Every structure is written in C-alpha cells, then in structure tokens.
C-alpha cells in the first residue's frame, strides 16, 4: 500500500491505517528507536506510541512522505524517553550520539544561546545541501537514523576509525557553519 493510501485510511478513521503503518514502516521505525535507545522493550513502546501519535495528528496533517513523518515521531518519542529516564536507565545509542553532537555546538556560547531551533534546522539544511551526496547520506544515517559508526564503516568498506574520522570532519564542518550563522545574527 502506498503512502497516500495509508494517509487516506487515517483520514477515514479506519483502523487498518495502524496495521498498514506497522506493515510498511514498523521495521523502519523500530530500527531508528533501537539504534537510539538500545533497548528492545522501550523501542517497541516508542513504535506503538508512534502509531497512536500518528492517529491523533492525521487529520489534520496530510504527510506526503510517511518515512520522514513516522521517523520524526519515533525520534521525538525516543529522546523524550531518554530525557525522562536518563537518571535511571542507560541508553547508549543516544548518549553516544549526543556526545558526538557536542562537537557541533558553537564555542561562542553567549551568542549561541540566541539561536532558535528552527534557525538551527535551517543552517543544518543549508549545510547538508553543500555536502556531497555520500557525506549527506552518512550524516543523516548517523544522526537521524542513529546507525552505528561501525555498521556505516562496514558498509563503506573502511575501518571504524576511518569512518569515525570522517564523521568528526563532518561535525567540525557543521560547527563552523553554525558559528558563521551566529556571527551574522
């Protein structure tokens, strides 16, 4: 079933929407949440909550790309779970990712506080458009899908260390882009 047909089911308040979402995107959402939380049980709950959240938001929304729509929901639910439980549970995937993303935080702290999340997104989008297709794919697979560096390295036939270096260069490049934007604010 295609995306627009699934969306139509949500609009018709037809519960097959959930079944089709699970059939078409369950594996995809589960992989994102497991990458982030490293916890099967919590990831499963996040995926189930994703369908509920979709049910509550379609309508009025009419997403055109369900991969991005569901992926975004499951990312948000996963980090919410991390924020709620971080004192009591270890979520290695997201912890490591956030630690890496620290490299992107501009060092000009006083100015950086003024940048809104929407503006940060715009800078990231502009920066992504300047990257090669391969680098763009690597960045999104690592920091959107949460795929591990080791698996990205394996797929690219490079060592884990080489891939980590490449990711570091990308983060440093993004940091420069964010700093440049802050100066212009």
């Amino acid at each position, binding site marked *: *079933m*295609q*995306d*627009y047909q699934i969306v139509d089911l949500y609009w018709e308040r037809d519960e097959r929407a959930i079944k089709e979402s699970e*059939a078409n995107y369950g*594996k*995809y959402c589960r992989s994102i949440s497991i990458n982030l939380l490293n916890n099967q049980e919590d990831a499963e709950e996040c995926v189930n909550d994703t369908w509920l959240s979709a049910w509550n938001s379609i309508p009025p929304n009419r*997403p*055109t*790309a369900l*991969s*991005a*729509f569901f*992926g*975004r929901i499951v*990312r*948000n639910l996963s*980090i919410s779970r991390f*924020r709620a439980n971080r004192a009591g549970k270890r979520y290695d995937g997201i912890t490591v*990712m*956030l*630690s*890496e*993303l*620290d490299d*992107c*935080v*501009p060092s000009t702290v006083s100015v*950086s*506080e003024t*940048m809104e*999340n*929407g503006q*940060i*997104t715009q800078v*990231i*989008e502009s920066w*992504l458009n300047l990257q090669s297709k391969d680098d*763009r*794919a690597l960045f*999104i*697979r690592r*920091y*959107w*899908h949460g795929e591990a560096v080791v698996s990205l390295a394996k797929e690219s036939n490079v060592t884990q260390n080489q891939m980590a270096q490449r990711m570091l260069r990308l983060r440093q490049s993004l940091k420069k882009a*964010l700093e440049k934007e802050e100066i212009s604010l």
Partner: protein
Amino acid sequence: MNSENIYDAITNINDDFIVEIKDSKGKKAHWRILLVAAIITMLAAGTALATWFLRAPDEAAMQDPVLAAYLSLEGTVIINESIDDGDYRVTLLGIAQGDAIISLNIPDMPLIEPDSTYVITAVQKLDGSDMPLLTDSIFDRRFYAVAGIRGISPWEYLLSYGTMTVVTEGVYIMLTICDDLEPFADRGAYIVVSHEISFTGDAIIYDEITGEVKANEEYDGISVVFALPLDSSKADPERAEEIMQGWSRLPAEISIEIDKNMIDADGRFMFPSVDELAALPVDEARAKMAAVSILGSEWGYYLMQSPLEDFELMADHIMACTVVDGNIR
C-alpha cells in the same frame, strides 16, 4: 545551544533529506527498476497464454491444437516446480521465448518483445479456494515476480522489466518479461516471487561471497526463489556482456504523455483502476500503463503525491524527462 538542541533541529530537517536516504539505502538506483511495470493486466492474449501453461500438465489439454502448437514452439519449457510458503503454493510453470510467442499471431496479443524471455509463475491457495480477482478490494497485497542473474548483486541489475498479471481459474498468474535469458546460461538465473515490485533486502537475502540469493525467512509475506533451468549449451558470454552493457546506458529520451484527466484536483496522479483499463482499447491501455510503469516506480510514488509543478524538480531523477504542458517528455 547544546547537543540536544542540535538533535531536535536535525529531527526537523526537511523530509526530502530523509526520503533521499531511505530511497537509496541498501540498493543502487538503476534505470531498469524505473521501468518495472506495476501491473499490466487483463489482456486477453495474456490470459490465454497463462491458461495454456496452467493446463499444460493435463493430458486432455494436450489435445488442444492451440496448446499443442504453443508447446511445440522453440524455446518453450514446461517446468511445473512448486514451493509452498504459508497458505500459498507458488509454481514456476514455464519459460517461453518472445519471438516464438509472436509467431503464433494471437489476436489482441499484448505487447511481446521478440528478444525477450517470458517466465510464467503462478500463485494459488493451498486450501483449494480461488485467489481473489484483481478487481476485488480484498486483494490488498499483490504478488510480483522479479528475475536476476546468479552471482550479480540483485540491487544493481534486474533481468526482468515488467509483469503481466491475470487471475484465471482461481490462480494468480504472472508473465514476467525478461531479457533474453539464454546468453546467461553459464551464470544461471533465478526468479523471486514475493510482494515486492523490485528486489529488496526485505524479501530476499543475497550472499555477496557465494552470489546466491535465497528467500528471507523473516520476511512478512510470501517469498520464494526458483532457479531458472537454462540450457548451458546456449550460453553466450559476449551477448550476455552486451546485454549487461545495455543496462547501464540510459535511454536518450523517454516520452510519456500523461492524460490530464488522470490528475486529480490536488494535482496528484491517479492510478487507473483495473476496470478502467479493461474497458480501454489495448493500445490506449498500454499507453496508460506505460505512464503508470514510470509513475509506479519508486520515484513515481513521490511524483504521484506531488503537485504537477514538482515534476520538473524531479525530472533529472527520471532520466531525461522534462515537463511540457503537463506532460513528462
């Protein structure tokens, strides 16, 4: 600003970035994938052809002069090998050569490519009940048959580029159009029957070391792999190489006219229903299906949901197409 702000900002990046990655992940785009027809269906000669194969083992059917003529065609192989999966029996019925089929001069013959090989597969229910007709709304999960070459990554090359589908005598039958298979006889070829329109890592597992393809047992649905029996004496490595080189050459231009009546009020492409297609003259149905085969491709799914003006933005992804007056050219 901290890393969690950046995480949140990344979460909200434009859908296009996410779609681009999901689309390219795990497989390489290949123009042949774009040409895999979604469904070409209900063409009378296709039904007859399929029925002949289906009845081939029946001795009474052998008395049928048309069937007898068909079975005598050069290159026709009746196989009848079955594999049960879940509630279904999947059968590799046979293989026929395009030029031999054309020589039969069947009235209302569907478009048959002379240099192509046609692989016929069937799906039926193990409990003996009929498969639903393609027009039945309960038929929400179709079957597809896709062919590949042993030892070559299925993500890169497809041997098949279209499937005619009919439901006849309660059996779901697919005629899969492939490149001439015989030159590949020394390598070996296979066909996968699953719910996937092209090869995906969901339905099959490809072993890069041995070059073997097998059904993914964890796949949620039917997935069956048949080795295609080919006469090794007909292997022609030079011709095979020529065919493979041809795959990597993009056509200089592809011209597809989209009937404006197929665009809804929101500017979305509307797939024609089986009933609509069946009511059309063969040529018109074929032209309409040509548009569907492009729009039904992976890029097509996005195009289908896009307003017409977005077609131009996508055009460079669809070979050399441009949009003129609402038509993809």
